[in-house]
């Protein structure tokens, strides 16, 4: 059993590595993009799509599917890479990032298979996810809704309206995951407008809260397996992550929130994200 779990974790780590490589690939195709927040969310997305969420990639509108909303829509390169790996979209779509008439722009577009809501304006996803969770309850459906939030995004007040309402309604079928990479466009979140004490805030708003290392795949899987964290409350997983995770020159700096990706930068990045890093071959 333990060996199976270890194999599962290693498989998910491979998924995350592929997502990160394809994030760089998409940004290279576009010439630039939101590297930092895409890479920080890759492990979480891998665990969600290849372990937790109940989905049918060949039937993207299956009514019983779990819903995932990427509220921090600027990480769309990571979502696209994930959807391609899951089989919702063709792999070649990743080369059409920002392209003319592409459904794969900087931010998620509901017209792309597997995308549940067009996002990009910050502070929208939690309320929309709340509506989805409510829709499940009102129709006696058992699908679960998961919303990924950015840390800078929580500076938008609308999130706190949603936080208050989800707890008031006791929506245990709603989970928020905070990709807490500590960096926003112009600097460190703590210096710009701090969220702290963020766990206490969500607890005070009536959510069940767990904090994890958002790059520890076993911890991510265990947290997702523990959902809902309380039987009558929405769940908040605060995932401590590193902006730009996986490529040394892009880590923990606002400079890589959104940056140019030249041929040289791309090659250097892929060298650090070598596929044999975990013993896999391709």
């Amino acid at each position, binding site marked *: 059993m333990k060996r199976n779990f270890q194999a599962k974790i290693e498989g998910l780590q491979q998924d995350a590595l592929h997502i990160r490589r394809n994030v760089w690939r998409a940004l290279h195709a576009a010439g630039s993009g939101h590297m930092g927040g895409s890479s920080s969310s890759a492990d979480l997305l891998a665990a969600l799509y290849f372990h937790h969420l109940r989905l049918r990639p060949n039937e993207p509108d299956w*009514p019983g599917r779990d*819903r995932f909303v990427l509220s921090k829509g600027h990480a769309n390169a990571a979502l696209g890479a994930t959807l391609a790996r899951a089989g919702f979209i063709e792999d070649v779509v990743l080369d059409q990032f920002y392209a003319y008439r592409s459904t794969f722009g900087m931010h998620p577009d*509901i017209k792309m298979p597997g995308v*549940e*809501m*067009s*996002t*990009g*304006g910050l*502070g*929208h996803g*939690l*309320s*929309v*996810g*709340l*509506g*989805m*969770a*409510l*829709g*499940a309850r*009102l*129709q006696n*459906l058992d699908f679960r809704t998961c919303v990924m939030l950015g840390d800078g995004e929580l500076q938008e*007040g*609308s999130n706190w*309206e*949603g936080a*208050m*309402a989800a707890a008031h*309604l006791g929506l245990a079928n709603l989970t928020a995951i905070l990709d807490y990479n500590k960096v926003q466009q112009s600097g460190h979140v703590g210096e710009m407008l701090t969220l702290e004490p963020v766990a206490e805030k969500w607890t005070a708003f009536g959510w069940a809260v767990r904090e994890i290392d958002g790059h520890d795949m076993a911890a991510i899987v265990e947290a997702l397996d523990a959902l809902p964290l309380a039987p009558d409350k929405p769940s908040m997983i605060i995932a401590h992550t590193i902006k730009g995770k996986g490529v040394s020159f892009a880590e923990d700096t606002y400079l890589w929130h959104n940056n140019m990706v030249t041929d040289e930068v791309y090659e250097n990045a892929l060298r650090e994200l070598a596929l044999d890093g975990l013993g896999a071959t391709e």
Partner: protein
Amino acid sequence: MNDVQSPGLVRPDWERLAQNQSRLAFGLAVAELARRDGKVVAISADTIDLFGLRGFLEAKPDRLIEAGIAEQNAMGIASGLATTGMRPILCGYAPFITARSLEQLRNDVAYANQRVVIGAACGGIVLAMAGGTHHAVEDLAIMRNMPNMTVIVPADARQTWHAALQTEQLAGPSYIRLGGKFEEPPVTDIAGKGFRIGRADLMRPGGDVTVIACGCLVAPAIATSDALAGAGIGVRVLNMHTIKPLDREAVLAAAAETDAIVTAEEHRISGGLGGAVAEFLAQERPTAMRMIGMPDEFSIVGPTARVREHYGLSQQAIMDACRALLA
């Protein structure tokens, strides 16, 4: 959208209960829609009594979500509900549901093209005494610039009932502007005969000048036509209850068959009904026009009737405009 008429009056007492108030007619229509379709769910932004939904809440407590005074969240919830196949009807104050939650309205509802019906009570200067914070005189300009959105300004409570019921047939989002806590004179047919979203009502025929009006300006437009008929002036009156999509055919016919056009609306001159008509005719058939509406200023405080008069939202102003165009 198809040609289906509003079904028969399933609640014969709806008109009495609406008390000639469009906000109450809308609330009654919410209950009727919920009776017909188990997917209908109302969302209140602390507006239960404004829409007369207290009885509905008691009858169907799980079909009314109270979002509190939090319009941004309410709008997002509506969008999320719609993605799951529910039919959310958001009941808000016109000045807040358009401005406070504008980004949610644009991104989550219009851009994502979700079937959300927005009922906006206290449109225009219904709350004139409350001051500029509570005046919704740019809402039509905003809504008209939302792709996918249908924009309706019913002329009275009767038309509100039929318009709300016909939203069942819309594939995308819609915005219905409503009045406040006072009576609106009934001017349309109680059975909604001939009413169709997107098609103007011909209220009076006439061959000299056309008044294209919406909402509370339809009644004075009709009075204008009746008054000028005695002077031998034929004033055609169109009740343009649907601002978007505009009934271009009716506008074009008016431009072709009468000499001039007056538009009348309780809204700023820019971007509303007059703007829609002028933008269209300037390209298709330039026509002499006068636009009755409000100027580029924050409107004054006062009793609604008095403030309407102050801004020339009146029969007198419509008559003067008709005469000026024909002189």
